[in-house]
């Protein structure tokens, strides 16, 4: 074998290391799938929150938190369901019956920035009727 042929045989193929790249790509995919499905079901995507630049960001959410969404037209949703104020009271009463320390259940009201306060107050009245008092309104930090 000539020297030249030997040198060519010894040269490794200049391939991209595919297997490690696939590892990274799969990790990225899994990350995006997981974060996409975590897109909280409780939040109504039709709602644009008001700006609240100074508010305290939500760091640790109580898992019992009940989220009530109020759309611009006054439609109220909980989870993916349209509800009436009477149904909110009913559902909260049911939750109260089953939970321990029911009075500390946090209620979060996510109102659309263009909704009139009348609609928000309907939801607040429904909460008030159950006696639950840990109520907070939601805004968003940035655009």
């Amino acid at each position, binding site marked *: 074998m000539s020297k030249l042929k030997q040198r060519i045989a010894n040269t490794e193929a200049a391939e991209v290391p595919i297997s490690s790249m*696939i590892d990274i790509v799969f990790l990225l995919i899994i990350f995006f799938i997981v974060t996409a499905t975590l897109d909280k079901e409780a939040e109504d995507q039709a709602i644009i929150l008001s700006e609240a630049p100074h508010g305290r*960001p*939500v760091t640790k959410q109580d898992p019992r938190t009940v989220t009530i969404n109020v759309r611009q037209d006054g439609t109220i949703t909980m989870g993916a369901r349209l509800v009436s104020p009477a149904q909110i009271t009913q559902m909260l009463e049911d939750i109260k019956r089953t939970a321990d320390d029911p009075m500390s259940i946090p209620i979060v009201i996510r109102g659309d920035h263009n*909704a009139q306060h009348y609609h928000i107050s309907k939801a607040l009245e429904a909460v*008030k009727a159950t006696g639950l008092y840990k109520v*907070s*309104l939601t*805004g968003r*930090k940035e655009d």
Partner: protein
Amino acid sequence: MAKREKTTVAPPPDASFPLSSMIDVVFLLLIFFILTQKPIVEDVQMNVQLPAPDPSNNELPAIPITVEVNKYERDNFDEIDARLAATSDPNEQAKILSEVRAYYVLNGSVPIPLDKLRTHLTNIAKGDADSTIMIKCDPSAKHRKLVLLLDLCSDLELNSLQLVENPARPYVPDPVEKR
């Protein structure tokens, strides 16, 4: 004797994955998820207190500080014009005009914009950060104005906020948007 036929063993089939097409699919998925990923919006929550269901149980602060959120905004001049045209009393007209650029009413005085309200509330917060602020929101006002006020109070660390009804104001529904 017949010559024994030479048996040839077929080379084993290539047992590797079709990597290149899989990478194509994986990259497509990756690009799809990157593109559909929404920017992370940080939600903020502002606590409010509601009055007790039974009005007799309500403890009102000794010196109540009330902030009214009214409905007027800079952009609804048509309505202001209509109201100005409806009255000929100059005092009434002056009152209407004072509301045009005003959003909030502190302790029942004249309507003021948010930056002026900030000055007043800063003084209140310096005096007593535990002061209870009673917020009366006009039912016709947009929710964002209430959130702005709550955000201001949160910034000034005024944490005792009570949201009360404002029965003095009528509810005027917004005109239905044509879609």
